């Protein structure tokens, strides 16, 4: 008889899963592997709700395996460690982000770029090395290889800090890699959601002057007064975009919906760099002239390697950079997803797993 999610592994776990592309969540019993010699088992305390969770739950990217337990901004407390684990001990606070495995041998892995490994294993909805499906952090217990565990800094809030494990690294990595982290630079952030608001905080911490570019004028007040942005432009207003022409050293574009990039390219200085971290499904239109005539570039970036993720968490703790979150119980998740689809959250939901998801 084929093993069910509940019986395939020895460790009993409860979570919330979607069963089909309706994306509706309900309780789900499953199991996780026993703690191997390199594994860390931890009790999940909080898990951030990333927009990718919504995309995957509804099979918008076409590769959903149901039942699907999302969640890749997971923080918790270590309950058991394998015999060869050196990084953490029982009782330590830890985090797991978007990946739980990679080949560990290729050029990417040996350069601390596990996220670009062709055999990288995602925290949920992927196939692990033992052939079973990975389940994410909308659950009460996690088991992960210590290499993919992030040590959580002392006294750094777990609830508000959880979204850094995806939103944080996704915006920190390109700011560093593309050299957009120098004090005094002018950085644009397109889109003010989970990714965008964290990008603003990191860019300010790097000493940049930050311009938020958004479709919604009603986000302006908070952007300036609460998040510390220096300027706010409404992207659909041609006059406002024109006023910013040629002013930005770099842009972090967090928008996943299809959108025109011509005005954004225009706002870059010559030799400016635009980095896309949101993933529009259909190709965008790239006009050649503005790219060439200013020697500009457009790049993409996706999360970051484990070394850089640890560096980012430590940086955030040192500079007190915390996402703005709305804490919810797990049974609110369906309403939360509806609101997320309408961008009705400032700026990340975080599930209080420990206090709302009880093992039976």
């Amino acid at each position, binding site marked *: 008889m084929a093993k069910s999610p509940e019986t395939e592994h020895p460790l009993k776990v409860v979570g919330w899963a979607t069963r089909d592309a309706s994306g509706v969540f309900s309780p789900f019993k499953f199991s996780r592997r026993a703690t191997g010699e390199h594994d860390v088992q931890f009790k999940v305390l909080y898990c951030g709700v990333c927009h990718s969770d919504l995309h995957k739950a509804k099979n918008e990217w076409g590769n959903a395996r149901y039942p699907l337990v999302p969640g890749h901004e997971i923080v918790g407390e270590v309950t058991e460690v394998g015999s060869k684990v050196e990084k953490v001990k029982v009782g330590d606070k830890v985090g797991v982000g978007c990946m739980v495995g990679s080949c560990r041998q290729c050029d*990417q892995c040996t350069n601390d*770029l596990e996220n*670009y490994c*062709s055999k990288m294993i995602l925290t949920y909805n992927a196939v692990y090395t033992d052939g079973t499906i990975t389940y994410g952090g909308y659950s009460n217990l996690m088991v992960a290889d210590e290499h993919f565990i992030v040590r959580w800094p002392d006294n750094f809030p777990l609830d508000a800090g959880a979204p850094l494990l995806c939103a944080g690294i996704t915006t920190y990595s390109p700011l560093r*890699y593309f050299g957009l982290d120098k004090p005094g630079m002018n950085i644009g952030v397109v889109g003010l959601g989970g990714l965008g608001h964290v990008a603003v905080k990191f860019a300010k911490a790097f000493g940049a002057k930050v311009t938020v570019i958004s479709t919604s004028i009603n986000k302006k007040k908070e952007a300036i007064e609460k998040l510390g942005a220096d300027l706010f432009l409404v992207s659909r207003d041609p006059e406002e975009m024109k006023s910013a022409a040629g002013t930005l050293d770099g842009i972090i574009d967090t928008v996943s919906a299809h959108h025109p990039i011509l005005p954004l390219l225009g706002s870059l200085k*010559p*030799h400016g760099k635009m980095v*896309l*971290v*949101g*993933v*529009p499904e259909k*190709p*965008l*239109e*790239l*006009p*050649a*002239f*503005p*790219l*060439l*005539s*200013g*020697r*500009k*570039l*457009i*790049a*993409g*970036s*996706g999360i970051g390697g484990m070394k850089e993720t640890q560096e980012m968490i430590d940086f955030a703790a040192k500079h007190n950079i915390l996402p703005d979150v709305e804490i919810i119980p797990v049974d609110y998740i369906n309403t939360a997803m509806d609101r997320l689809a309408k961008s009705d959250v400032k700026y990340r939901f975080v599930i209080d797993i420990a206090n709302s998801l009880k093992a039976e």
Partner: protein
Amino acid sequence: MAVTGYAQKSFGWAATDTSGVLSPLHFSRRENGSDDVTIKILYCGVCHSDLHSVKNDWGFTKYPIVPGHEIVGLVTKTGCDVQKFKVGDRVGVGVIVGSCKTCDICQQDLENYCPKVIFTYNSRDQDGTRTYGGYSDIVVVDQHFVLHIPDNLSSDACAPLLCAGITVYSPMKYYGMAEPGKHLGVAGLGGLGHVAVKFGKAFGLKVTVISTSQKKESEAINKLGADSFLVSTDPAQLKAAMGTMDFIIDTIAAVHSLAPLLDLLKMNGKLVTVGLPDKPLELPIFPLVLGRKLVGGSDIGGMKETQEMLDFCGKHNINADIELIHIDYINTAFERLAKSEVRYRFVIDVANSLARN
């Protein structure tokens, strides 16, 4: 209306409307100023931009237009403040003949990105008149925008380096492609592409030509020295080459999707586009994000780098592969160029074929 009434009479071939057909034109150029050199033109390369411009493909042509920005000639006059050149020197003029010289960008030797840049043709000169290019007998240029040609390069075959050469050399340096042992893809095998192959080999790179025309393979490998050749319309060949290239120089002038080229790049790979299609390119985002790949643009190069490029060509004995033509062949040449029927650049033998009426 042609510029007339200036001190130095000039004669060339110009297009007068969007048909792009060229015919003789008398006009005039300024007197040789204190910083200027006057150059008797020997040869002028035929760049695909010339064809786009005479037909007003990009929408900013003012007629009559005398194209030509790959000019090689001999200095006949030097202004009193000219130190770099003397009469009789063999020199080149490329795509730009002026800039503000004072802004940050000019101070960094990036005159080509100066907001006040003046192009060799179809541009507004400092005195308000239109500039006329190298399909003509003489040109008068500020010494700052004139280049020395290394002795060992051929006057006719080095002309295309003044645009095609710098157009591929600059991004190859800027985007860090000059790393021996790395793998470069060159998309499109025309004027720009064939020079990119030669530079790639001179930089010690493994070079793969990516082209729609199978019949270009033999020359690409045997004559230009490419290491391999990929037919981009063959899905099996594309699949076999997926994720193998560190860099791609995309010289394709027609509208195309970047998707198949992006898939050829390794992680963190770089695609630089130097062709100028008149409509936007299709840019899929998934491959960029999943592979941290980038698409960059580049537009010729500054004067310092253009001289560096010419000196590099002198050192490595790199000339373009050309077909020498007379000026009265130019309309036929343009028709063949539109069909990519040239290996790989036409060069006009100006001195021996441009006769004043």
